[in-house]
């Protein structure tokens, strides 16, 4: 093997495609009519979404009793799904904001898509706090609005912090995503011949004329927004983890939760982005834009965050033993050996063991294996939330109130439906907007930036 020349920046893209070709390639899905495959895919995701609609219909009509939740397991798949989807939503902003600040150019190929996924994942996640309440028609009570009863929300409740954290995150992500889209929308405006599209692109591109001044402002806004979004990446899942950490229940009451949850969120988010991008690059022929190098870098992030999560699992056990609180010790033993041990070991296998395979370069660069491992990670991360929520609640302090949790078919419908909801948005997004940032990709084509070497 030849030694890598570290003095030279590696090209993000493979080959040296002409800029015009990039524009055409990226905007191609937008300019062609949806084909049969697209409709098949859409019908599948819409059918899944229909399950969500039916499941929610049953829930709203009859009550939360349609789910498996009980006393003591007041939260189960509902909040598991919530935390899972919020976690998925963490990769996008991390890629677009944090990696941007760190000048990681490899992010350009995947940033747009990851951001889109963030928004859709947060939208999916946002469903759950609303639907998990017993009286969803009163969910407005969760917002601080002046009412004649002078009843205010309870600012000590982590659930309220969630409301703020998630809605802020969604807003900022949406703005960030939109700002990034503006130059591309202008490109599309220039390209399209369709009158209606032209009007839409003209309006949405906000009069972008690719002028130098525009670019200067754009870069500044993008930088500021990146700076603004960066703490959110950390804060949202920190606050979600407070839902558990602030409580008194053994298995929840733990100070390790914030970093552990953030790491887990990035972990699962990257896995999901990687999964979906592998499909996207194949279908849209973006192999040279979303390169194996990029995917490998994502796998490295997964390896890092997966190890952090594994460390957290171990540390939880250590602290449970070291802390000497009998109830907490039991909770952790019960996780590993009790009635939900199967879920625990699925979680450990998927989250701790499987990403360790990424130490091997071959696996890291093999599309097939990395795809499977990322699927495992997603399964494992769902189970992580399930284990934390259900196994802790089902056996807490008083053995007299212990009760097993079994999900119902409605729980299943809502889980499947949430995937349907998410992927419906993804499909529509892939057909309606450029899934790769044209402007940014063009900027990283070899030779597009002024360089003293070539002169």
């Amino acid at each position, binding site marked *: 093997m030849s030694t890598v020349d570290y003095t030279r920046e590696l090209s993000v893209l493979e080959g040296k495609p002409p800029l015009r070709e990039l524009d055409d390639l990226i905007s191609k899905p937008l300019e062609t009519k949806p084909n049969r495959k697209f409709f098949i895919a859409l019908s599948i995701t819409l059918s899944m979404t229909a399950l969500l609609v039916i499941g929610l219909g049953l829930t709203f009509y*009859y*009550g*939360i*009793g349609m789910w*498996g*939740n*009980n*006393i*003591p*397991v*007041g*939260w189960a798949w509902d909040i598991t799904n919530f935390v899972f989807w919020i976690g998925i939503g963490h990769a996008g902003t991390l890629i677009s904001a944090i990696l941007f600040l760190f000048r990681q150019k490899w992010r350009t190929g995947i940033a747009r898509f990851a951001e889109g996924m963030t928004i859709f994942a947060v939208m999916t996640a946002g469903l759950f706090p609303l639907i*998990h*309440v*017993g*009286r*969803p028609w*009163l*969910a407005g*009570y*969760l917002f601080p609005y002046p009412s004649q009863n002078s*009843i*205010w*929300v*309870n600012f*000590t*409740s*982590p*659930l*309220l912090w969630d*409301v703020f954290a998630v809605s802020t995150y969604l807003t900022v992500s949406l703005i960030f995503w939109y700002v990034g889209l503006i130059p591309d929308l202008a490109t599309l405006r220039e390209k399209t011949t369709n009158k209606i599209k032209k009007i839409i692109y003209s309006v949405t591109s906000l009069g972008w004329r690719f002028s130098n001044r525009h670019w200067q402002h754009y870069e500044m806004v993008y930088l500021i927004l990146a700076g603004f979004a960066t703490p959110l990446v950390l804060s949202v899942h920190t606050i979600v983890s407070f*839902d558990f950490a*602030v*409580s*008194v*229940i053994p298995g929840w009451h733990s100070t390790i939760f914030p970093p552990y949850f953030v790491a887990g969120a990035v972990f699962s988010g990257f896995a999901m982005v990687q999964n979906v991008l592998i499909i996207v690059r194949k279908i849209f022929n973006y192999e040279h834009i979303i390169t194996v190098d990029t995917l490998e870098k994502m796998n490295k992030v997964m390896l890092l965050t997966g190890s952090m999560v594994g460390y957290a699992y171990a540390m939880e056990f250590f602290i449970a033993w070291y802390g000497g609180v*009998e*109830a907490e010790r*039991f909770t952790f*033993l*019960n996780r590993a*050996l*009790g009635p939900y041990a199967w879920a625990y070991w699925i979680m450990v296998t998927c989250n701790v063991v499987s990403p360790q395979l990424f130490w091997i370069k071959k696996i890291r660069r093999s599309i097939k294996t990395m795809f499977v491992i990322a699927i495992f990670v997603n399964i494992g991360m769902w189970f992580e939330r399930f284990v934390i929520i259900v196994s802790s*609640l089902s056996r*807490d*302090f*008083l*053995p*007299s*109130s*212990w*009760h*097993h949790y079994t999900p119902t078919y409605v729980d299943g419908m809502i889980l499947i439906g949430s995937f349907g909801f998410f992927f419906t948005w993804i499909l529509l997004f892939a057909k309606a907007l450029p899934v790769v940032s044209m402007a940014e990709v063009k900027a990283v084509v070899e030779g597009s930036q002024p360089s003293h070497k070539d002169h």
Partner: protein
Amino acid sequence: MDDYSKLSNNKLWKSLKEFHNEDDVLKMKHDEFLDGVTDEFDSSKLSGISRRKFFALLSASAALTATACTNYRDKGEIIPYNKRPEEILPGAANYYASTCNGCSLSCGILIKTREGRPIKVEGNPDHPVSRGKICAKGQASILDLYDPERLKAPYFNGKETSWKNVDSTVINILNETQKNGKQIAIVTDTIVSPTAKKVLDDFTAKYQNTKIYSYSLVNDFIRRQAWSECYGTDEYPAVKFDDANIILTLDADFLGNEGNYIENMRKYVSKREVVDKLNFNRLYAAEGRMSSTGMMADYRLKVAPSQQLNFVLGIIYELNKINPHLQLDKSISARLKKFSLLDSADGEKFKHLIKDLNDNRGKSIIYAGDSLSKDVHLAVNYLNEVLGNTILYDYKSSFKNIVKHSTKEEITSLINSMNQGKVGIIIHYESNPVYTMPKDFGYESALKNVKTVISLTVSENESSAYANYTLPTNHSFEAWGDAYAREGFYSLQQPVISPIFNSRQKESVLLSWISANPNSYQEDIYHQYLMKSFNSDVFVKANSLADAKTFWYSALHDGIVRKNGTRQITRFNNIVLNNIKEIIPGNNFIVHLTESYFVGDGRFANNGWLQELPHPVSKITWDNYASISPITAKQLNVQMNDFIEVSLDGRKLVLPALIQPGVHERTINIELGYGRTKAGEVGKNVGFNSVELMTKNWVYSPFLFENASIRKSEGSHKLVSTQEHHSLDDTFVKDFHYSRKIIQEGTLEKYIKEPNFLNEEKENLVSITNEIKYTGHKWAMAIDLNKCTGCSACISSCNVENNIAVVGKEQVERGREMQWIRIDRYYSGQPDNPIVSNQPMLCQHCDNAPCENVCPVNATNHSPDGLNQMVYNRCVGTRYCSNNCPYKVRRFNFFNHRDHFADAYYDNDLTSLMYNPEVTVRSRGVMEKCTFCVQKIMEARSNAIRDGKELKGSDVVTACQQACPTNAITFGDANDPASQIAKLRKHNLSYHVLEELNVKPNVTYIAKLRNTHSEEK
């Protein structure tokens, strides 16, 4: 220029045409109105609607639209009293003294009514026996009044008919039957009412072919028989358990459901006192099943019910050995022998028992269960004689026997007559013999040979299914009555609501038939009869200075009239000892049938509240089962819920098994009262009918059968409990209640030595936040675990007081029961004979309540007087509060349970009348929990304000506290230093559950002391 000139003409122009002054524009400007506008109109061409009519139509349609849009639902009308009845004050409850009809104990009750409708039953404090307490069944019996499936009209062969028709035809049939010389049979349940007995006597006098049969499924027939043989009377005395230092029960659940258990509990706990004085008895329970009494016992000895005779003889033998001065009858000393138990694991306990009995002669009592054989009762009566324990018999309060229970021979002859066609009429007088009689009597098939079957019943049952006439009777809250259950007092029952349906008092029905005139019925016919009878039997004998009317009203007000109990003490008849038949117990399984704790003999089967009350020991709801020991289960390779087949001489029953720690290896305990096939939507097909196992040809007793064989059967049936069954020997989850300090206990001896033993390890917890100071009242509760027997009266009372929903079996299985208070049961020790600890658990109203800070909408918060409040209107149902509750006492409305349970069975206009108007009926999606009966606090507060007094903690009595038969629950103001609650909170034995969480609960538990010997660990 030209343009400019034009411009001056038209300074303003609207179009180029106008600007250029084109012709048509000029024309339009000229004609101010368009063509036709200014023409004269022809009125004949116009619409014929007049202006008035137009306005009328306009306003009518506007009104119609407005009405259609209002979403108007007829919510009924609320009309204030035009002329207020004298005794009713809207918003204030009235209490009427009456007598409970739930069983033959006839406890005194106070029925609470609001605006004329009964909403709660409480004990009558003036009642000399029950003293203001009633059991869980009595509390919940109010639901039967509002049962939507009550019979609403008389039926003749399934068709609705009128009472007048019924009366005239029945009177004809009665006369005809009388003429034909055929028998008129009245089958009744146990009768405690002397006046009802009089009515029956009158009936017999009128129709002389009448015979009365009294039969009840669960009875004390054998005890009475034995007593009668020993002492010449079947009216056995009450036992002064409160004077006994040593109590030995032989398969007698005297704290659960045998004898007058309300009275027994009160007397028993009077020697379980730790607060004011230290006063302890010692309870030994020798039993084969695991009963409520067994849970409470200081020493529990495992003795199979068939071995009880040998056990008693063994005790006499051992006593005789250590105390040769005992004067034993020859016939008994001849057959004494060592009891094998001495060599078993319980040998040590047996030795203690013998020593205690010997040391406490005259201060101990041996009490045999109703289901044991007569021989055991004879031997026990003798043993009590020998030990001089007869001074604990209270003859002044002996159990009356107004209508004797029919013997096997009487019932057999009735059935023979029925089969031979000699019975013309059968009247089921509020009884259900088709269900309650052993099947080998053949009652059910014999009924087909009776021409006229009449069922007088509140709601349909198995027997009324065969009836030609199904006649609705009044619920006891709609009926007059009296009771003479115990020597020493007489109690009255009065209606508190007029009959809701077209039903009649059962005595009135008979009275109108006695009169032989179908038009003679008057609504107060029995009322008058009762008053007359009262005058002659009670008033005359009372030698009262008051006149008859005043006396009657004062008796009605009090609910009882005291009488001087006659004290008849007869000598023990030694000859009976010769009758004791020794049966050498085999090694087969013994089936022991016992009454259900909550559905009784099946009469409460259609009562959802009672079906859903967890069994005091197993915590199973909505089912009965075969309770077998872990060893037996292992031998048979049976798991929990597996079907097993129990067969007894060809009688078979397949039912699920419950592995019950503590059950004797050869005993199978099954509860009676389940498996009703015709008991309404709620009660039908709940559990398994163990009457199938009964026979008329019993050897030991009607409830005890030897030579049972059991085998594993196909399939299983999910038994549903409110508490998971953790394997006792599973070290993974064993003894958590001790290690987590949920249950703290000690022995009496240890407490005497080190009164502060509980607090030695107590840590000083520091709060890092500023504690809220409660300066005014601070509500708190204390529960004395020495006194809690797990009887569940508190749960039942709370259900009624706080409008708790019934959720049904599937929802209990899912862990969604709604009861606000539960009784946790923990086992420790060995699975074959565990030590049991009970603990009522309810909202702890923590000062630092973890539920409060996590509610995002402030729906649960703290009141200035220390209550953890739930604001239902504000609750959106995140369930976060419940997740964060360390005690898991919050209950969530996963459904609108009233709508969801049994096809909205309890969601109807009738059942809604039962709700306590002071307590919100919670809808779905709302969290709820114990409120410390805040409505009662508010009531006491407004009373105090009205009277200008200071509100005292003792003014408030919570529903659970009111119901607790042992007064284990104390409630009050913790900030009042003189109050009992303040004292209890500072007591040496007081502790909080999960103290180390520093949530500062306001429910204090008083640790249980076990009165065992120090050698025992």
